[in-house]
């Protein structure tokens, strides 16, 4: 039997703000370091989308819950509490990176924190996350899986196959579509026959809803409810969280497929600003507090760069390690 359900976690706005700031500053720093050629390859930034991973993962209890993400995974890694140092070191391809310099930007993992990546194949993480749900059910644990994927990924057959099985077997998985409006250069409306993705839940007899992904408290609330359903009733859910990425798909994408106006409009809905304003209205945050938090985030990220810089390259012999046990 499942353990008696613990209380859903109340959101801690200060902690949410810290996490979002850390993500924002980490991403900005990564972008800068890419420009300095310290980082290469794909670099998919999460700027603008911070509230989604932050709010959702704050609703989870990572002693028992799991997080599975796609390649745009820096925000999720930081939100599960990974230290920015091994993350930046991973981007720098150093031996101290969380994946020993073998994974890079798309492949952050932290087995101890129940963070299972970091997957570069669009949609391929959805069945994997569902399998984690199976293990929870199989071992009669009271954990839940948060499975993140993009608006582009939802059309993959893997989505359909997974949700049917999750409902059929009643696996505790919360499917979170991070609808940042674009899959690479493609407006999600150009590749979808419907625009309200939460409706797809109907094909699997699941609850589905749309959530404002620029409001971290709304995200926290919606995901808490879904986690509750999953934990107590083993009922999976589908959430479509509407968000927006401020930068290109990857660092090499100039994002000319959208207008400046559109971007500006969304920036007005900045998730950090929204929370900050909310806290100021509630008198729980002063401008000085904010500046201090931001400075802390910047300092942490700067330290991460220093750590990454000074870390050694992986030894050539590691090329042949980690292939098999």
């Amino acid at each position, binding site marked *: 039997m499942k353990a008696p359900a613990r209380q859903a976690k109340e959101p801690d706005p200060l902690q949410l703000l810290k996490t979002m700031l850390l993500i924002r500053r980490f991403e900005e720093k990564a972008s800068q370091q890419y420009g300095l050629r310290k980082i290469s390859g794909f670099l998919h930034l999460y700027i603008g989308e911070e509230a989604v991973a932050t709010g959702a993962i704050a609703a989870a209890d990572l002693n028992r819950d799991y997080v599975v993400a796609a390649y745009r995974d820096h925000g999720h890694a930081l939100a599960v509490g990974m230290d920015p140092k091994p993350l930046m070191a991973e981007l720098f391809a150093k031996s101290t990176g969380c994946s020993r310099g073998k994974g890079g930007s798309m*492949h952050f993992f932290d*087995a101890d924190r129940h963070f299972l990546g970091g997957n570069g194949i669009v949609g391929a993480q959805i*069945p994997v*996350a*569902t399998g984690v749900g199976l293990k929870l059910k199989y071992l009669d644990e009271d954990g839940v899986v948060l499975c993140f994927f993009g608006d582009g990924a939802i059309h993959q057959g893997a989505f359909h196959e997974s949700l049917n*099985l999750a409902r059929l077997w009643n696996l505790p998985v919360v499917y979170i579509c991070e609808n940042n409006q674009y899959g690479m250069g493609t407006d999600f409306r150009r590749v979808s026959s419907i625009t309200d993705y939460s409706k797809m839940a109907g094909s699997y007899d699941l609850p589905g809803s749309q959530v404002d992904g620029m409001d971290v408290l709304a995200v926290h609330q919606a995901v808490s409810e879904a986690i509750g359903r999953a934990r107590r009733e083993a009922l999976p859910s589908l959430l479509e969280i509407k968000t927006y990425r401020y930068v290109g798909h990857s660092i090499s994408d100039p994002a000319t497929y959208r207008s400046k106006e559109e971007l500006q409009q969304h920036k007005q809905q900045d998730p950090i600003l929204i929370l900050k304003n909310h806290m100021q209205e509630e008198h729980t945050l002063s401008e000085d507090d904010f500046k201090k938090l931001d400075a802390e985030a910047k300092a942490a990220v700067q330290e991460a760069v220093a750590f990454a810089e000074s870390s050694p390259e992986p030894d050539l012999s590691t090329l042949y390690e980690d292939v098999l*046990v």
Partner: protein
Amino acid sequence: MPTISYREALRQAMDEEMARDERVLLIGEEVAQYNGAYKVSRGLWDKYGDRRVRDTPITEGGFAGIGIGAAMTGLRPIVEFMTFNFSIQALDQIINNAAKMRYMSGGQFTLPIVFRGPNGPAAYLSSQHSQALAALFTHCPGLKVVHPATPYDAKGLLKSAIRDDNPVIFMEGELMYAWEGDVPEEEYTLPLGQADLKRTGQDVSIITFGKPLQTVTEAAARLEAEGIAAEIVDLRTLRPLDQATIRQSVQKTNRCVVVDESWPMCSVGSHVAWLVSNQCFDLLDAPVELVSGEDVPMPYNHTLELAALPSVEKVVQAVKAVLYLK
């Protein structure tokens, strides 16, 4: 020693390992209530119930991925493909997730998962259902690939595969399920990665694996009658490949024929044939010959189908060719 079928050997292996370790479970199409399309899992659902023996919808990509997620977090799933023909739908999950997860996470995860089912042509099933696909998997680092040909090997290797902490592709054969052989009553396992001499001889090494072992064995008997002593190397595991045993055999015989029922190009067979050619260059008295399936999709008509497969005749001829007997 009891004589049991290859099917029963596999069943015993799964049964014993499920009894031994609660984290082992079996998932796939028709594996539970129907006892498996080829009855390999007979009785397991009765014994272990819905929790540990799970019927899935027809969604190879989906349930392969589910197995992978479960394996990453502590279960030890056996995923049955009704046949490996359908595993192509799961190949992305296997190649991009199962085979790489450990590597790209810098060694953070183990993937104790077995993908098993029949591989290779049976009879009269036409092209989509008659494919020997070992090469697709053997190509890829991060996997192990096992292809046993006797009940004894099947049981011992499947038990090891289930205990292995790596993703293992375990290939059986529809027509092999009824094959019989001696299997000890006591528990045993066989190590992955070791070839086995199924017959010794000094005139020629015939290297094979899986179902063609029968063809090769018959060919060896026929050759024996003509005074030619063939040694049969059964690879059993294709990845990692037991190069030492291969080399030792060819060192002795100086001649080699490789038999593989798959298509010839980029096959396990042509790879092994190159390895032997390369590593035994100075020892070889003749070019290494490959007897493979013909380079065509499999036709339904049985006469054509037989013509498309390695045969005793073809093996005998290849052996004679490497012996320079007309």
